[in-house]
Each structure stands twice: as C-alpha cells, then as structure tokens.
C-alpha cells in the first residue's frame, strides 16, 4: 500500500524553457500540419508572440525533470505496475517559444479500489510563466496495479 504520508507532498519545482526547436519537434512527432505550430510568421499572424506550445506540451516539464517518476519510485511503485490513468489541463493563457514555465505539483489524493488491487495517486499542478502569471493547471492520476 502507498503510504498516506505522501498526501500533500510537494514535488520539486520543474522549470522548462520552451524552445522553438523542441516545440517544432513535438508538433512533427504528433503529425501536426497547422503552420501556427511550425512557422513563427504563421504563429504571429494568428496573434501569438512566437510558436505556441500545443495543448498537451506542458506535460513535458515534469517528464524532463523526472520528478513524478522519482516520486512514484519513492512510493514503491515499480515501472511495470505503473499506468497513467487520467490527465487534465485547464488553460489560463498561452505558453509560447521563449517562455519559461515553472510547474508546482502536489499530491492531492491517494485512494484504492478493488480491495487494494488498484491504487491511485492524484497530482495537481500549477504552471506559471516567467512573469509569474498562471498558464495552466494540470491534474494527473497515476495508477498502480498490484
């Protein structure tokens, strides 16, 4: 069982500079063809200061830092038992190339189902930009299968 002491745990802050090349690589990897995500001039014509991060890109900050995986490991959840159950994004303002985002995450819920066969860890994240403005809120559910 995951120790309930983790409830309220605050993960180390993950910071990510959004680089044009990385955003383009992400857009290409998902097959994006809309020029807004690939061409700076098209992005500017659409009202963005630079290439916008696609809707789910912000998840990369904590993938790069590895903080969520490290937390799962410290909770005793091994890789072969770990599943991504749910994910949500609520948006406040765009994040574009040149911005630096900081992701502040805490564990908001830990619960189990099916007599402990499945355990769930819910994390809530606030993403803020270099001006300390809110960019997005993320909600993630990690599932541990026993």
């Amino acid at each position, binding site marked *: 069982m995951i120790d309930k002491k983790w409830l309220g745990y605050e993960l180390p802050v993950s910071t990510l500079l959004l680089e044009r090349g*990385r955003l383009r*690589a*992400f857009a*290409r*990897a*998902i*097959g*994006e063809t*809309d020029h*807004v995500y690939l061409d700076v001039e098209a992005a500017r014509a*659409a*009202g963005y200061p630079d290439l*916008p991060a*696609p*809707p*789910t*890109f912000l*998840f*990369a*900050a904590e*993938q*790069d830092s590895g903080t969520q*995986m490290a937390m799962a490991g410290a909770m005793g959840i091994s*890789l*072969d038992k770990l*599943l*991504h*159950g*749910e*994910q*949500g*994004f*609520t*948006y406040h303002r*765009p994040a574009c190339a040149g911005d630096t985002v900081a992701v502040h995450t805490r564990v908001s819920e830990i619960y189990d189902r099916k007599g402990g066969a499945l355990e769930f860890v819910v994390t809530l994240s606030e993403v803020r930009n270099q001006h300390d403005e809110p960019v997005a809120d993320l*909600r993630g559910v990690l599932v541990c299968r026993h």
Partner: protein
Amino acid sequence: MTPFDPAGIAVGKPLPALALEPVNRTVLALFGCASGDLNPVHLDLDVARRLGLPDVFAQGMLGMAWLGRLLTNWAPQSRLRRIDVRFQGLTHLGNAITCRGEVVGICDVDGERCARVQVSSANQFGQLKIVGEALVSLA
C-alpha cells in the same frame, strides 16, 4: 481549414474526425524525445519483454496530443479552456487511431459561453483508447 464559427455550433454537431497512420516505432521514438517521456517501455523491446509485455506500446500522452490536434483543427487553441481525459487501453504498434468529437452541451463557465465537447479515440477494431471532455469558448 474552415474558419471556426461560434454561431454555427450546436449540440450534436460532430467535429471533423482525425485519422492517424498506424503507430510505428519511429513515431514512438520521436514522440518520446519531443515529449520527454523516455520510459523505455515505449522505446525498447528488450525492456518491454523483461516486463512481460509482448512489445513496446504507445505513450498515453501521444494519444492525448492527437485529441489536442482534433480540437485545434476545429477551433483555434486560444479558445480551448479545458481538456480532461481517461486512458482506457494501451495503444499498440499497428493500431490506426481515429479521434472523434461531438458537441454535447452549451454552457456558461465563469460567465463565458462554452461548448462541451466529448472526445474519444479508438483503433481500427473499434477498441476505445481514450475518452474525455473538452471545453471550447464560443465567446
């Protein structure tokens, strides 16, 4: 792309579907690097086998990114207020995913008129992979 017309949005209206090529290892490697998800279970057959899996499988967030494309193909991203999904099943190599969406409600959220859009993705056998809901501003 047809310009988004908020006045033309009504309950029951389907979004143009997004049909993807079958998943291959190259896509998983490119998405792994670009998204930062370097979990070897998506990239390395040896690791997948050691964990008792027949092969590598797609990153869940790749499927969610495709749902993001479904939405931003329909409405500019600046109108996207929210997207919440549940991962229902693993996406395997060779799975050809189609993303679909439908307006299921019109509501006011924080004083802003929004469309509630039900989104889902499924493979060529009709097996659901992701289900969820998005909020798109009509203001």
